[in-house]
């Protein structure tokens, strides 16, 4: 395989994986976060601790779970605790260094909506809701967000504050008495964004290989800010691509399962 033989989705997952380290204790969401965490574990961060909200602590799945409670998460875990304990001792207890969230709608300050499109009382689309996100966003040491860019997703104003990022920006978290860092990284299929140190507005710091500034702006409904020097995200290595694809192939085979 050549260095350019990868999809934007794969680049997103690999860029997210690179941001993870051996010392992280990660509260993992399903989908791209789960893929990124497991690619990290299978490449440069073999000792990373992955926690799924189903109560599985220190899990090492061979295939990606479809749900956050697949059997393999438990079988490969250091221990499996009850869900109330997970939220009380581990998340609220401040034991999780990093929370990894996705979003249906995201604004420039890292606030997330996964609750409703339209009004809460008479929604156009009723989304699944927050699940663990409201407290993941406030209790984890820091937050990574990963999502595909789109005008419907990266919006000027989210319809509902499912979880709080930097609010209106600046020191809004601190003003609410939240002591954790909040969103420190946004990894999309096109770019890597970091909050501005002062305003906390997400700013593009790295474009994925071959991506233009226009592509970023065309898929983001707010006026995108770019850092003074925007880097290019390093190409996926052969090991990264192979690890991700092997993982996905094992996962697909496993999930075909039984039903027709």
């Amino acid at each position: 395989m050549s260095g350019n033989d990868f999809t934007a989705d794969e680049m997103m997952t690999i860029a997210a994986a690179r941001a993870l380290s051996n010392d992280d204790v990660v509260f993992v969401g399903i989908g791209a976060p789960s893929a990124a965490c497991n690619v990290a574990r299978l490449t440069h961060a073999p000792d990373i601790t992955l926690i799924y909200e189903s109560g599985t602590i220190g899990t090492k799945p061979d295939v990606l779970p479809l749900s956050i409670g697949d059997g393999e998460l438990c079988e490969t875990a250091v221990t499996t605790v009850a869900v109330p304990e997970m939220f009380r001792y581990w998340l609220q207890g401040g034991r999780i260094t990093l929370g990894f969230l996705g979003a249906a709608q995201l604004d420039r300050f890292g606030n997330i909506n996964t609750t409703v499109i339209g009004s809460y009382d008479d929604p156009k689309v009723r989304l699944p809701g927050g699940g663990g996100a409201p407290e993941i966003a406030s209790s984890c040491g820091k937050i990574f967000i990963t999502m595909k860019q789109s005008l419907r997703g990266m919006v000027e104003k989210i319809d509902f504050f499912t979880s709080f990022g930097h609010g209106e920006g600046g020191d809004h978290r601190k003003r609410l008495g939240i002591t954790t860092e909040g969103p420190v990284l946004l990894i999309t299929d096109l770019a890597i964004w970091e909050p501005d140190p002062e305003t906390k507005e997400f700013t593009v710091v790295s474009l994925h290989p071959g991506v233009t500034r226009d592509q970023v702006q065309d898929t983001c409904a707010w006026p995108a800010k770019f850092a003074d020097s925007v880097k290019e995200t390093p190409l996926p290595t052969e090991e990264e691509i192979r690890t991700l694809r092997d993982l996905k192939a094992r996962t697909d085979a496993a999930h075909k399962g039984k039903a027709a």
Partner: protein
Amino acid sequence: MVKFVSLAEAIADNLHDGDSVAFEGFTHLIPHAAAHEAIRQGIKDLTLIRMTPDIIYDQMIGMGLAKKVVFSYAGNPGVGLLRRLRDAVENQHPRAIEIEEHSHAAMANAYEAGASGLPCAIFRGYKGAELAKVNPNIKSVTCPFTGEELAAVPAIRPDVSIIHAQKADRRGNVLVEGIVGVQKEAVLAAKRAVVTVEEIVEDVTKVHPNACVLPHWTITAIAEVKGGAHPSYAHGYYDRDNAAYLEWDKISAERDLFESWMKANVIDALPGDFAARVADLEVNK
């Protein structure tokens, strides 16, 4: 005194029109067979409580059993939205339902408070989150030592909790292993508890001293239903039928397809049918 009964009896004796009920299971050990029995019995006006209402609540809502849903994540796990729940919330089909929405942390704490006999739970939560503005059951208390404002939610105290577990023993002690979710809390918080199990064995108390065992005097009724969690799974018995979860997304997308599927697979089916559904998914013991 725990009773060993058929699933039909367990539901008929313990779940009544208008009850609040928690069919719990956090992706693992979801009591599908029991929910299908409730649908067959046509029980009405239920308040359905669950952290993760997934396929079974989509089915119960689609069949018109629910008047209210209390939840924290209403999705088909790993797949997408719950289409029958959406139809009820967005279009009031087949009836309007009330929703009371929380975060996972709030629900988990509320079950824990219910099991603990407390009227409410306190936790550090909902900071900056908008649910606190739309749900009047989210309030706050002030720590009398530090002055910190903490979130408070009422304890969950269902009329009935219904769970699926791996094993019961002949005394009626129930063993839950693996991802144990909030099942223990749901059982202890409820006025009545119904448990379906994969099998009844001689003794479940020797597995491990700290295994999750619910003593017989905390359970109202036990029914043996092999495969009763399908397409969810039972750790040590059979795997999750991930394909069935993917398939549900299509079945639930259209009202007609949903109804014909429900007739064929639920209304005209029996608890005993679950065993065959897991035959190909069994794990080597």
